[in-house]
């Protein structure tokens, strides 16, 4: 299995006219939803899932990949031109980007974001193509106990590290796991949580759950809190950069990529922390520190690159281990399952052509995004004038259509509404939605691995830590869970000694899993809040 020849085969598949067309559709849709308020890539992929059942899985995933990368590009446009970061990962871009735009340098800000995203996306995808097979090689040697531990790590890391309240994260996780329980037990065939309702015995369709939580919940939530004062978009022509801008941008792009990819690949790494780290680093290294806060191009170039490299990084555990670490990856994983494709380390062998076509299409999508976005930025900005009633009514309309078309049962729409109301409530009371979705998707697989593990050890719980990798992971989980406690002790002991400096350095050498997740939790505590605060202003 040579990476290079597999990748070339992937390009051959991805460049057939039909698949190329889906890649184009994907990046256009992705950019549009990234620009439009209230729509994100996770929601869009969820909405499109039912529609793509009629397609070849390969074509569908090529389109999803385009949407994923496109959404990242589109998000930066609104951050820069409107100062309204749609996703937490573009909060940092908005800080300097909007200042640049206000100072009449919108074209340069958009250009450095687009080109930086292209550079980071391309490097990130290359790293994905190189790293994923290595991870797979390592992963196929693992048994059920290790898998069980890795899945626990992914679930607990996302729940405990992301979001502002751990307690609310765990509440959301619990709800997700409970939803995942509904239906026939795969081993004994007993009905769980079906309440005698035959329609529930197949379990809740993950498409319906994802559409309900992401689309219906979000549409209802936004409808309840519509922004009334119109914003004014900063007019922009075609993005371009001068020589000076290139000179100041290329290093931040590369450094941003170095931050983004490893964090994206970690469970619960996400894109938020690397963008912030990149911003802080650029601020410190810049020859023009006085420009920071007034529109420094480095402050756009670095975080945007980090953001896109993280997107590529996220796909590594998704494809190599079947572990989603953000919402879009979670929905894409659900899509694999709906196509009857088993995600996990076997994926590269059992569905090799699909996976390589997907990776190849990421390269193609990246290039397409650059070509589409540089000249079309003013057109995308026009999308923002779409009246809200049509936008949100459209989301509800397509959510209903999608959920209904899966089984052609009105009953699914009742579930859609109930779970949509749940999604609304979660947004109202600050319960993060990501742990719920991961719970629904990973819960049943987690249970499967648990039962397999204990079956092998004939019921002896010691079987859970019978593999060395599993033990290492449990230690990491322990550290993550106890982190707030450890952090407090650490603070007390060292009182006011050395502030943020040394901690930030440790984050830059993050590829090793243990060191990465731990240092990362500390950045979250010290840094993440600052970033959020600035962005909202």
């Amino acid at each position, binding site marked *: 299995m040579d990476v290079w020849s597999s990748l070339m085969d992937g390009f051959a598949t991805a460049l057939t006219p039909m698949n190329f067309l889906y890649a184009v559709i994907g990046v256009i849709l992705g950019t549009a939803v990234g620009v439009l*308020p209230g729509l994100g890539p996770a929601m869009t992929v969820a909405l499109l899932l039912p529609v793509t059942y009629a397609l070849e899985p390969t074509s569908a995933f090529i389109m999803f990949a385009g949407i994923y990368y496109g959404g990242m590009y589109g998000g930066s446009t609104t951050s820069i031109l*409107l100062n*309204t970061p749609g996703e937490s990962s573009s909060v940092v871009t908005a800080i300097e980007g909007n200042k640049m735009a206000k100072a009449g340098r919108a074209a340069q800000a958009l250009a450095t974001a687009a080109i930086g995203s292209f550079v980071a996306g391309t490097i990130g995808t290359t790293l994905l193509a190189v790293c994923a097979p290595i991870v797979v090689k390592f992963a196929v040697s693992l048994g059920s106990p290790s898998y069980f531990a890795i899945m626990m790590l992914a679930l607990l890391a996302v729940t405990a590290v992301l979001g502002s309240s751990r307690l609310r994260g765990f509440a959301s996780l619990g709800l997700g796991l409970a939803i995942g329980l509904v239906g026939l037990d795969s081993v004994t065939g007993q009905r769980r949580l079906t309440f005698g309702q035959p329609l529930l015995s197949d379990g809740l369709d993950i498409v319906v759950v994802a559409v309900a939580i992401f689309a219906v919940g979000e549409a209802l939530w936004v409808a309840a809190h519509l*922004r*009334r*004062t*119109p*914003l*004014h*978009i900063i007019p922009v022509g075609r993005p371009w950069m001068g020589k000076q801008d290139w000179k100041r941008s290329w290093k931040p792009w590369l450094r941003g990529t170095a931050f983004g990819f490893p964090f994206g690949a970690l469970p619960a790494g996400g894109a938020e922390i690397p963008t912030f780290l990149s911003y802080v680093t650029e601020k410190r290294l810049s020859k023009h520190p006085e420009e920071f806060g007034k529109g420094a191009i480095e402050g756009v170039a670095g975080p945007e690159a980090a953001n896109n490299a993280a997107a590529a990084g996220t796909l590594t555990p998704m494809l190599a281990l079947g572990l989603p670490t953000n919402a879009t990856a979670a929905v894409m994983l659900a899509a694999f399952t709906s196509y009857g494709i088993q995600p996990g380390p076997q994926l590269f062998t059992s569905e090799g052509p699909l996976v390589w076509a997907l990776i190849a299409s990421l390269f193609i999508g990246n290039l397409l995004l650059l070509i589409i976005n540089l000249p079309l930025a003013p057109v995308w*900005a026009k999308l*923002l*004038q*779409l*009246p*809200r*009633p049509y936008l949100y009514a459209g989301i509800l309309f397509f959510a209903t259509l999608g959920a209904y078309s899966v089984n052609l049962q009105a009953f699914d729409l009742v579930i859609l509404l109930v779970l949509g109301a749940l999604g609304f409530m979660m947004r109202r009371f600050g319960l993060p939605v990501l742990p719920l979705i991961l719970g629904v998707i990973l819960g049943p697989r987690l249970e499967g691995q648990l039962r397999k593990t204990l079956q092998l050890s004939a019921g002896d719980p010691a079987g859970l830590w019978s593999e060395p990798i599993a033990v290492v992971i449990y230690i990491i989980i322990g550290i993550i869970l106890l982190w707030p406690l450890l952090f407090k002790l650490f603070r007390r002991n060292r009182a006011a000694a050395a502030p943020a400096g040394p901690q930030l350095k440790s984050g830059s050498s993050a590829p090793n899993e243990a060191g990465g997740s731990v240092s990362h939790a500390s950045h979250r505590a010290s840094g993440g809040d600052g970033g959020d605060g600035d962005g909202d202003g």
Partner: protein
Amino acid sequence: MTIVVGYVPTPEGEAALTQAIAEARKSNTKLLVINSSKGDALVDNRYAQEPEIQTVEDRLATEGIDHVIKQPVRGHDAAAEVLDAAEEHNAEMIVIGLRRRTPVGKLILGSVSQRILLEADCPVLAVKA
């Protein structure tokens, strides 16, 4: 008595404003500038922002016109806001700006100007940019 002008930060809007200033000076009446937004989209370029309104304000001040500027955002369309203001202030005239539109564009988009022309109780002066 007042003159009501529907203002938008575009050439048509500027033309309407210029004409309205001339009219207000001629009859020595108060000028009511209306710039509204329905507030139903994230971005509304026809809703003037702080600096643009300041420019209008400065211009009216230097020309020495007795004026009021209003920017209602109440979910009503621009025609309704202008008509409301005209009725409330018992306007002697409404000034609006027009742009060229093809018959098809008119059919699809509807027209603020048309509604003002049809429903106003006072004379309407329509200016081409």
